[in-house]
């Protein structure tokens, strides 16, 4: 009898476990997401924060741009990218010498309601909000990564920074270069001509933030959003999801001017309509590729980038794979406005005085393989430092020294004084210790191995990498530069000697002629004359090769058939405000998924 009783205990135990599992499964019955909601759902990397001056990463900027607004923006559909007023009431008036920019701002724009305002109601945006926000961007105590936007360009800014550094109370002192004659006018006085000013005023770093909110939240501004943007913050569960709701009072309208093919793709159907179109925008913060991809395939997200491992399944012959196309999935391709390159440290005597050695390395590099293996074919071989889609880009420009020709590389190596690599010390290629960076370094090692050049890969942590760049203690490294704004100046600055480390000119290239042209271009208004100067600088860089341009990457995004008006562009960070969801079509198409 006792044995039977104890066996029952065992049975009870197992039955308990079984029913527990069943119960959990029942609880977990996947609730059907409300497909009738007019929501746009996107997978995103983890957000760092929501304060425009405290976060500089792309993911955070994509969200901040929807919560805050900037003076200027890029026309959504038109290419090449063209700047247009956003919070500004028209384009600025610029003095003849290019030093004074007068900007009128739109009236009747209000900040979102927030407890920091009297009565919790958002107040009207005024010109002083911009000046306050820009001073915050330049406040040395905040050490914003975006300070470079105004660094060395605004009258009296350096003195103001020194005073603030000495005593924080000096923050309220005026900056001579930022003036507000009235509540709807801003006057910016530059210390030197800077024709990219309007571009930087389209960047989220410069978005107006109300002083009341900063006073109330202080450093906690990273968790609050009090802007004038198309959406307002509804909720944010850090590392999980952020939900934004439509700002019903948003001033923006959908563009009426498009580029070739936009009308045919239905992108002009909503011309002149008030935006945003969706009631809610949800960013799911997901770090792994598989859930990103599966969520898209299931229709739980509407638009996605293509994870590297899923590229072959998603794209066939540079178009959507037939099985996905049958489900209504569409592809959008957009230039990355970027450059990947190999950088020599031009302070190293080995490279500084031996252009033929640099040529040899350039012609040994198998860029096609790089594009195929590391970018899934999503890129083109760079011919110069200037990427396509920029006004001064010349599609006919070819640099023969960037062609992958091993025999030619060997010839240059011999001219450089190292035939067959003999006598050349082992080169050190510095990379961060990520697996992708190491693989890239191994390809470089293989490429140069064909010439008899030995390469030692030095994998270091990110802080060590920065430290060695800053201290100019490296020989060769790989790098990438993504445009802050669509102007070749942003790329050519990589070779301007005054930007040498710790600035972005990590190759520490110094060429008086290049510098002279760079400074001349800075004084020249946009147009053919400035483009000609850019091209002269391009030619110097192509001749000298302090950096070896490798690729210009291309962005591929997929979106479901129920998404309309989507046009990808990495520079237009507030692009989701234009997107529309066809809710009945979503319900219909989701059944096929």
């Amino acid at each position, binding site marked *: 009898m*006792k*044995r039977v009783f*104890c*066996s029952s*205990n*065992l049975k009870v*135990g*197992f039955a308990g*476990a079984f029913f*527990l599992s069943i119960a*959990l*499964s029942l*609880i*977990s*019955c*996947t*609730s059907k997401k409300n497909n009738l909601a007019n929501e746009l759902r996107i997978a995103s990397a*983890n957000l*760092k*924060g929501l*304060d425009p001056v*405290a*976060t*500089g990463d792309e993911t955070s900027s994509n969200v901040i741009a929807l919560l805050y607004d900037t003076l200027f923006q890029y026309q959504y559909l038109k290419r090449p990218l063209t700047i247009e007023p956003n919070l500004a009431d028209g384009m600025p008036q610029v003095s003849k010498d290019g030093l004074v920019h007068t900007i009128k701002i739109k009236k009747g724009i209000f900040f979102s309601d927030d407890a920091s305002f009297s009565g919790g109601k958002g107040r009207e945006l005024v010109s002083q909000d911009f000046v306050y926000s820009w001073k915050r961007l330049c406040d*040395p*105590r905040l*050490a914003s*990564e975006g*300070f*470079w936007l105004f660094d060395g360009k605004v009258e009296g800014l350096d003195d103001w920074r020194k005073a603030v550094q000495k005593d924080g109370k000096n923050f309220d002192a005026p900056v001579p270069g930022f003036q507000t004659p009235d509540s709807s006018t801003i006057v910016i006085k530059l210390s030197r001509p800077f024709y990219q000013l309007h571009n930087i005023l389209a960047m989220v770093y410069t978005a107006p933030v109300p002083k009341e909110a900063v006073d109330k939240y202080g*450093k906690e501004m*990273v*968790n609050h959003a009090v802007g004038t943007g198309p959406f307002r913050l509804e909720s944010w*569960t*850090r*590392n*999980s*999801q952020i939900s934004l709701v439509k700002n019903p009072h948003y001033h923006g309208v959908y563009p009426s001017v498009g580029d070739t093919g936009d009308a045919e793709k239905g992108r002009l159907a909503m011309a002149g309509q008030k935006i945003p179109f969706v009631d809610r925008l949800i960013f*799911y*913060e*997901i*770090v*792994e590729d*598989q*859930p990103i991809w*599966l*969520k898209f*395939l*299931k229709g739980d997200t509407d638009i996605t980038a293509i994870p590297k491992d899923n590229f072959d399944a998603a794209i066939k012959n540079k178009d959507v794979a037939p099985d996905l196309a049958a489900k209504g999935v569409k592809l959008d391709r957009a230039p990355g406005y970027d450059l990947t390159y190999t950088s020599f440290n031009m302070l190293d005597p080995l490279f500084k005085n031996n252009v033929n050695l640099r040529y040899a390395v350039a012609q040994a590099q198998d860029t096609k393989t790089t594009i195929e293996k590391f970018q899934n074919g999503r890129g083109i071989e760079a011919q110069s430092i200037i990427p396509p889609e920029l006004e001064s880009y010349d599609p006919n420009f070819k640099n023969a020294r960037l062609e992958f020709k091993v025999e030619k590389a060997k010839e240059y190596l011999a001219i450089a004084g190292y035939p067959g690599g003999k006598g050349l010390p082992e080169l050190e290629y510095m990379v961060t210790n990520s697996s992708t960076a190491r693989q890239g370094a191994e390809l470089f090692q293989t490429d140069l191995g064909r010439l008899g050049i030995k390469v030692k890969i030095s994998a270091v*942590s*990110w*802080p*060590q990498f*920065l*430290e060695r*760049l*800053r201290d100019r203690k490296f020989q060769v490294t790989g790098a990438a530069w993504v445009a802050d704004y669509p102007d070749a100046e942003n790329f050519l600055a990589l070779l301007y000697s005054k930007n040498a480390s*710790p*600035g*972005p000119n990590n190759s520490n290239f110094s060429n008086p002629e290049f510098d002279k042209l760079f400074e001349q271009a800075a004084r020249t208004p946009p147009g053919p004359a400035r483009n000609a100067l850019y091209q002269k600088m391009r030619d110097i860089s192509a001749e000298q090769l302090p950096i070896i341009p490798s690729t210009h990457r291309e962005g591929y995004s997929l979106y479901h058939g129920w998404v309309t008006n989507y046009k990808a562009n990495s520079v237009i960070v507030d692009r989701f405000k234009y997107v529309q969801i066809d809710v009945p079509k979503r319900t219909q198409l989701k059944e096929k998924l």
Partner: protein
Amino acid sequence: MIPILLGVTLITFLLFNVVGGDPALQAAGRYATPEQVQLVKAELGLDRGLPAQYLFFVKQIVSFDFGRSWSTKQTISKMIMDGVGASLSLTIPAFFLTVFLSISIALLIAYFRGTFVDRAIFVICLAAISLSSLVYILYMQYYFSFQLGLFPISGWSPDWLERWEYLTLPIFIFVSISLGGSVIFYRTIFMDEIFQDYVRTARAKGLSHTAVLFKHILRNALIPIITIVVIEMPALILGSLLLESYFGIPGLGGMIFQALQSADFPVIKAMTFISAFLYMIFQLISDVLYVVVDPKVQLK
């Protein structure tokens, strides 16, 4: 314990403030000028001497105020408090379900020791532990969530009741990953006990196999069971990196992973100390529990 704790703080401090690269360079950003780096150093207290920096670190620990993350600018204490609930809501039920199931299965095997059932379960367990945990995650997420649509692919809800929808599959995977090893572990413990003299005596007195198993063997096996359960606790609090990352659970595992990826030293430093502290605390708890379950053990 206090000397060990001080030793832990000292080693953590040396690792991050002395041996590694200059943290201010990382915090100041890639293109910061030397002046900006100097400002950041002052802000982080890195311009002071090492003894002063160490005292500052100890003060941070005592006040549970580790400053702000360099990467997210969030208060680290808040990040920890936010993450610990999410991690525990995954790991605690998963762990105790694993313990319950594995002890039950191990007792079953002990009951049927030497038979086909014993061998079959043992082989299955061996096969289960030979698979990488990533394989479980990738395939189970693909089949159960995507193909069969039984669970959400990933997601989270701050609401305790709603979050079970998102937690069920990760818990199931956690149990699947852990079960094989646990069953073999507990089986070994029970097998060790089963051949002890007291078991033979109990049987000689006429007790049934089942009664011996539950009343004697299970009780005597409690010490190793407590050891493994208590020692696992810090790991449970620190979360499950892979499961959290794949299922979008905003726990401490994912937070630590991101901190490592972005070289977010203040977060890494805080978590290194907290991990060491938790291991010490739970080691102490397990010692105290030994006294409770085994009268032969005494604290001195």
